């Protein structure tokens, strides 16, 4: 059985930053990722990120991704691609299917940074080809460079829905509209303005009734809703589209954390069930850490900072040293990002997680 100091499961923004931070502190790091290339969903983010200079604001996501990969390579971090971590067993033994072969790896510490998955939305015919997640569509156009449809309807006006609509325009598709069931949009107005000024309508208090088509999507029926979200059927309207994208939020991918025996809590603002963790990102199972979207849906910028925090915390434990100043700077950068209408609620939820961690650890 292979033995490692630190195994990071998931090589997205959080995992890569964790690896870089820990490696810089002299820790032997292995990243396990099921994809053929690390970087997670960073490479499909072709827009510029918000934030400050320290958060690399104004830089496009894929450029940040390239920078992280370069650093990981230069530091000599071991990366297993095409490798699925299917389970965490007793004594932090991880089961991995690497290139089709079963391998067991024993780790002193584990950082789980498995990211998130898109929420589906069911309506008649939602399983037909031509209905896909907005993130899936983003993968198709920005990674695979293929248009999955030419006339698109976007369901949901959160930042993902708005940004992917803009990127669909950039890829040469027509976006016939964005529908939002709430009376106001979910994402930032600046993202809405980017598509509005090029003529994409955003329908408020409107939902999709059904997708239309026999074996593939050929259209959609959209319909306004009343204040109780009940469709006003007589006002329904047919629109011709060949692609319906669903952008109705994300859910943390936390199966491995459950399996490892971590305690959980429900945080609606963070996308659902999340593992309790302390201010060092350590879960209720000693030496298992968490970082990024799988510990609560936020942004790539916060995932990277959480990754660094987890990486340094692991190094502290293994090397028996303290880097409190460095960690405080990271926590400050996280706080800087968790402000404003959107950030405030996430900050409160994150603080509750840490509080609940200590309460539950005490009574457990």
């Amino acid at each position, binding site marked *: 059985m292979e033995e490692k100091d630190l195994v990071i499961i998931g090589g997205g923004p959080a995992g890569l930053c964790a690896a870089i931070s820990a490696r810089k502190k002299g820790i032997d790091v292995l990243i396990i990722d099921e994809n053929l290339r690390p970087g997670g969903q960073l490479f499909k983010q072709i827009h510029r990120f918000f934030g400050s*200079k320290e958060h690399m604001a104004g830089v496009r996501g894929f450029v940040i991704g390239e920078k992280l990969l370069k650093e990981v390579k230069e530091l000599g971090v071991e990366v297993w691609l095409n490798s699925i971590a299917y389970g965490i067993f007793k004594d932090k033994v991880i089961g991995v299917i690497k290139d089709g072969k079963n391998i067991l790896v024993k780790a002193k510490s584990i950082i789980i940074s498995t990211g998130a998955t898109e929420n589906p939305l069911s309506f008649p015919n939602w399983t037909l080809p031509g209905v896909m997640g907005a993130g899936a569509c983003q993968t198709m156009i920005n990674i695979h460079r293929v248009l999955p449809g030419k006339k698109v309807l976007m369901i949901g006006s959160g930042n993902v829905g708005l940004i992917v609509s803009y990127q669909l325009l950039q890829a040469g598709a027509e976006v016939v509209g964005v529908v939002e069931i709430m009376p106001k949009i979910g994402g930032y107005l600046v993202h809405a303005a*980017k598509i*509005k*000024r090029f003529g994409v309508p955003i329908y408020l208090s409107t939902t999709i009734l059904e997708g239309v088509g026999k074996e593939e999507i050929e259209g959609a029926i959209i319909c306004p809703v009343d204040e109780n979200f009940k469709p006003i059927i007589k006002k329904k*309207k047919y629109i011709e589209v060949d692609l319906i994208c669903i952008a109705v939020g994300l859910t943390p991918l936390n199966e491995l954390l459950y399996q490892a025996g971590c305690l959980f809590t429900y945080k609606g603002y963070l996308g659902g069930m999340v593992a309790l963790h302390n201010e060092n990102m350590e879960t209720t199972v000693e030496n298992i850490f968490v970082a990024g979207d799988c510990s609560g849906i936020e942004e790539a910028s916060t995932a990277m900072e959480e990754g660094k925090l987890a990486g340094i915390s692991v190094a502290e434990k293994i090397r028996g040293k303290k880097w409190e100043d460095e960690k405080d700077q990271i926590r400050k950068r996280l706080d800087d990002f968790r402000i404003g209408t959107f950030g405030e609620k996430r900050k409160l939820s994150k603080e509750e997680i840490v509080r609940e961690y200590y309460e539950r650890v005490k009574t457990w």
Partner: protein
Amino acid sequence: MKELKLGEKTYLNKISFPSFERIKKGSVAIIECIEDIPCNPCETICKFGAIKVGFPITSLPILDEEKCTGCGKCIPICPGLAIFVLNYNFSEKDCLLTIPYEFLPLPKEGEKVKCLDRDGKYICEGKIVKVIQPERNNMTALVSFAFPKKYYNKVRSFKK
């Protein structure tokens, strides 16, 4: 069906525009950033110190209209693509608006275009005056186009 309208007063009233006196003097940045987003690259890039976000970084950017030279450095760096530069004195009849543009094909200088408002609605005819290639600003092109002065606060984009 109810639509989001960005040309309405409820939205426009949130934008702090430069004074009309300043606009009449020549090129100036118009920052249409109206939400508490944790973001401040516009402040960092302005070498004239004309944009202030300060602390916390969710504060709205405030433009010092006397310090702003309308250089346009802030246009492509804004992740929200919410900054434009207006030159009201471009010619006797026309003003000139510079916007960030991230689509293909890029328009050509001299080309006639249809000017659109914030909701993508047709307003008037216009003409492309200048195109700064995307490679200069990490793949965000800057396109300047001229249209009648009276629409200076309406037009925010164009189509071919």
